[in-house]
């Protein structure tokens, strides 16, 4: 009794200042123990060495929207190399007055991707709108229909080409990969061994050897007089390459399906194709959504390798700009800009993949 009545008068004892608030946080996270304190000081010293100089170079001393003469005069970064050549870097040799078309196509892609973010919107309609969307994007790029001027694929370049190679590459590679994965799980020895050999062969060699193959060997495979343009050949190489990786990911999903599911489907009297289409694949593909996004990310990064067979993707247009004597020597700035584009795309995708992983984990 006494203690309860006395309580209001007693001053509430607060935790010591060193345990809460900013100071408490700093103590707990930066200076908990002599080793961590030492580490913190070392890291701070390192940051002090690097950050001010970089900020000065990138922002304070830099020039943004000038010609190349002003760039030679400053010690800082010359971001003008980008602003002066932005259209070439982004669109390559695409005709100047038609560049709204790839821009619109990219806008459409971003809009579709943005709309598809919510899993609740994933249905047949969305799948169809993706198909239509991809067709419209291709049409916008190529032209030749509905009064759009046709643009030779040799003139395609820059960011649209990078996106084209990765988006179409993955869309086409996915079904191939699923078929390969099913083949690898098959009980028919011939089909199984074909699939295993294909998957292991492709996964064992670097993409660049396939690109070499597409550029120098593939023309030999075709009958006389038939030619396939360079972009399509590279695209096929990327599809064949990505499909093998997708097959392995899908196989992981197939192996994660309980045997009971197969047996249940069989006891319902479903045949192989019905079992796969209605029972197994919907479950297996759901499991492998997060790893599929990582495949998309690496496919997106890997498209940069087409530089080596002289396709004008984002990286190649940047290099071409840098070979202009006017802008020579500003590689760091230009490459940082391109890296930023890649980083934003990949970071968004990997964040999304993490979010999906969390969502899919809870409803299991």
């Amino acid at each position: 009794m006494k203690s309860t009545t006395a309580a209001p008068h007693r001053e509430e004892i607060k935790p010591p200042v060193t345990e809460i608030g900013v100071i408490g946080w700093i103590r707990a996270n930066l200076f908990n123990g002599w080793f961590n304190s030492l580490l913190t000081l070392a890291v701070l010293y390192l940051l002090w060495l690097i950050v001010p100089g970089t900020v000065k170079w990138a922002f304070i001393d830099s020039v943004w929207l000038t010609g190349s003469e002003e760039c030679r005069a400053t010690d800082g970064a010359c971001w003008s190399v980008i602003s002066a050549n932005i259209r070439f870097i982004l669109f390559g040799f695409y005709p100047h007055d038609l560049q709204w078309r790839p821009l619109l196509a990219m806008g459409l892609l971003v809009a579709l991707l943005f709309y598809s973010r919510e899993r609740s919107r994933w249905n047949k309609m969305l799948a169809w709108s993706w198909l239509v969307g991809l067709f419209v994007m291709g049409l916008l790029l190529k032209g030749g229909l509905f009064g759009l001027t046709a643009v030779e694929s040799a003139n395609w370049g820059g960011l649209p080409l990078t996106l084209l190679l990765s988006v179409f590459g993955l869309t086409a590679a996915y079904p191939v990969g699923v078929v390969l994965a099913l083949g690898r799980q098959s009980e028919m020895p011939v089909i199984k061994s074909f699939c295993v050999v294909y998957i292991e062969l492709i996964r064992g060699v670097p993409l660049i050897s396939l690109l070499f193959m597409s550029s120098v060997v593939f023309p030999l495979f075709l009958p006389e007089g038939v030619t396939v343009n360079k972009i399509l050949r590279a695209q096929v190489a990327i599809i064949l390459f990505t499909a093998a990786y997708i097959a392995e990911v899908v196989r992981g999903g197939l192996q994660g399906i309980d045997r009971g599911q197969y047996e249940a489907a069989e006891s319902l009297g479903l045949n192989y194709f019905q079992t796969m289409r209605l029972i197994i694949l919907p479950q297996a593909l759901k499991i492998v959504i997060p790893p599929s996004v990582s495949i998309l990310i690496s496919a997106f990064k890997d498209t940069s390798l087409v530089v080596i067979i002289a396709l004008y993707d984002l990286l190649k247009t940047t290099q071409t700009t840098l070979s202009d004597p006017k802008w020579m020597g500003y590689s760091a700035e230009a490459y940082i800009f391109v890296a930023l584009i890649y980083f934003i795309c990949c970071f968004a995708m990997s964040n999304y993949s993490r979010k999906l992983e969390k969502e899919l984990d809870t409803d299991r």
Partner: protein
Amino acid sequence: MQATTAPEKIPFLRDPTKRSILYQLVTMAGVALLGYYLINNTLINLERQSISTGFEFVEKEAAFEIGESLIDYSAADSYGKALLVGFLNTLIVSCIGIILTVVLGTILGIARLSTNWLLSKLAAAYIEVFQDIPVLLQLFFWYAFFYEILPGPRQALDLLPGVFLCNRGMIFGVPHYHPAFGYAAAAFVLSCIAVWFLRRWAIKRQDATGRTFPLFRASLLMLLGLPAIVWWLGGAPTEMNVPVLSGFNFKGGITISPEFTALLLGLVLYTAAFVAEVVRAGIQSVGKGQREAATSLGLRPGRVMHLIILPQALRVIVPPLTSQMLNLTKNSSLAVAIGYPDFVSVAGTTINQTGQAIEGVALIMIVYLIFSLSTSAFMNWYNKKIKLVER
């Protein structure tokens, strides 16, 4: 009566065995037809362009120089030797790259799990940034870094005493050649073998009698001590071959070309980000209870790490780690983009000069397949070795 006749009535396509044989025959025929079509086209095309097939070209004179080579090579040597040079270049950049990647990746992975907020966030930022930028772009960046940003030899950056960085590459001092170093290396190999036997003996004795042996300390003493003693007995040579600036370039020491350094830097920094994630996931996969149980048994922190955490974490770490090593090896083929003469680059030059496209690409594929198949053979062996013994 009816039951005995029923099996004969199954139509051909409903019989799973027959159907599967049919499917397989159709697939085989399809693949064979496609193969025949492609080979036929190729033969016709080769004949039309009058390119001979086969690997005779490896005997011919290569007639091109290679910038850096581990073995003696000149333009008068054969294509075969040129390809061997490229192969060795790929091998050395991969080996050094893998070692550096594992070291850097492990440090980053542990830093990511550090209780130090600043360090952990910094490691996370590094991992995210370097994973999300194409490795080719990183290679171009480091290559440009050497040729555009670094100064010439006269203003070379003096990183450490005797280590210089300039647009001619990285230059550092090495000890003068002396036979004592050879003896010391032999002593090191010998002590490695001795340590292996010692370990077997120690384990056997512990199994039999329960007595432990301070294996780690003894091994360290042997591995470091024996070579050092041999080096001292051999005359303890300390003379260094230090690079000195003379005229427009350095004399002496060892120069590592900008191409090699840029390739190594790009590959290591890129792959280390992935290895860091692998290491982090591996360490996190060991349950907290394991550490607590080990501590409650009275094991010291070092023993807990060595006996409880690491063996379990390694089981998770090693498979993805090997695939990252393989990735690094495959990505080393991007050397062709920055002019380092690796296998793909030499094979590309060979293709251009001889027109033997099919053979050249086939060689590239075979070489990388050998790498990856031997890696997966190792993986299978390792997985079998460390597999959990389940009851």
